[in-house]
């Protein structure tokens, strides 16, 4: 973007509109950012490391999630895997961003990707519900992105500097855990998600002694498996018939199909009391 186009973008009414649209959510963003800043420093990071991380990574929940891992020296791939899982929602968002910005050159698409986030996404989709390009969209996006960036980085770095003045023994870093707890609770919609979380918690604690923070991997794998299994079972839970299978005989192809579809539960007859 040349200076001239940057100036045009700044003066564009859609740029201003985006700032107003984002103002309401900015307080919440700021509080989150401060918690993240404090949590980073209280995990043992130096101020310069924390500022570097805040400016570069620019991701609230992913940053919070990897802090305990970085603090215990987890291997890089566990850190990255955890962040990828937490960031998965952005992958879905990106498929919607595409309908507005697919025509732009790659470097602009990447820039839009990097500076987008949940709050911008919500504001943008409210303003432009029609998934097709329109002239005001880019200045609007950059207005929202600038507001989001400032509302995040300023309090985040303030939090980093303030946290440095507070003793570690106060345990302010616990606010980061509570923030993640809040996000987690907001993801629990149904039986399957609750069970998956229960499994993940049990697995993460039970496998804690594994080296290289592998308990994280075990917990993620177990929870995703359980979640998908429960979904598969739930889809088929329409009052199955009991099918008595005589001893010493195989089920017919027809019956096998019923069993596999979950319409019948096979019960094997046994030749002894």
């Amino acid at each position, binding site marked *: 973007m040349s200076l001239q186009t940057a100036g045009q973008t700044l003066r564009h009414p859609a740029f201003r509109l985006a700032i107003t649209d984002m103002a309401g959510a900015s307080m919440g963003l700021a509080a989150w950012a401060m918690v993240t800043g404090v949590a980073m420093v209280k995990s043992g990071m130096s101020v310069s490391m924390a500022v570097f991380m805040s400016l570069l*990574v620019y991701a609230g929940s992913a940053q919070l999630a990897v802090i305990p891992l970085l603090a215990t*020296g987890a291997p890089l791939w566990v850190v990255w895997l*955890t962040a990828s*899982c*937490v960031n998965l929602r952005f*992958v879905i968002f990106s498929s919607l961003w595409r309908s507005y910005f697919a025509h732009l050159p*790659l470097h602009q698409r990447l820039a839009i*990707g990097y500076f987008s986030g949940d709050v911008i996404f919500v504001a943008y989709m409210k303003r432009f519900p029609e998934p097709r390009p329109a002239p005001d969209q880019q200045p609007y996006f950059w207005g929202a992105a600038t507001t989001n960036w400032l509302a995040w980085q300023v309090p985040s770095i303030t939090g980093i500097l303030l946290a440095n003045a507070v003793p570690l023994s106060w345990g302010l870093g616990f606010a980061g855990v*509570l923030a993640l707890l809040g996000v987690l609770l907001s993801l629990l919609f149904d039986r399957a998600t609750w069970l998956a979380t229960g499994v993940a918690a049990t697995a993460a604690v039970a496998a804690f002694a594994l080296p290289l923070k592998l*308990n994280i991997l075990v917990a993620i794998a177990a929870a995703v498996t359980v979640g998908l299994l429960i979904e598969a079972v739930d889809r088929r839970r329409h009052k199955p018939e009991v099918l008595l299978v005589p001893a010493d005989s195989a089920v017919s192809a027809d019956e096998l199909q019923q069993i596999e579809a979950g319409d019948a539960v096979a019960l094997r007859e046994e030749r002894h009391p």
Partner: protein
Amino acid sequence: MNWDGLEFFIAVVGLALLTVVTRSFFMIPEREIPLPDWLKRGLKYAPLAALTAVIAPEILMSHGALIATLKDARLPAVLCACAYYFWRRGILGTIVVGMLVYLPLHIGWGW
């Protein structure tokens, strides 16, 4: 923790790349790729699994073992935070309530 400078640097640069790649994922290819079903399903469980895996030990364990005492400020703090969340559904309030319970118990009583 070994806050080894170089390893931290690599970790952070990798995390920044993940921010770019995940947020622009479907904008990167020139041709449109349809959103696969397994991704939508995975989306439902992978984030909550990762979050739980990270915070469960932070809440339930100390020094590598399950908490053996009820005199731990984290437990009442988490209970009150959860109660608040299901009452009001606000994440910021959840953090505030949790810390309001945690800090006096932790700093005052040394739990």
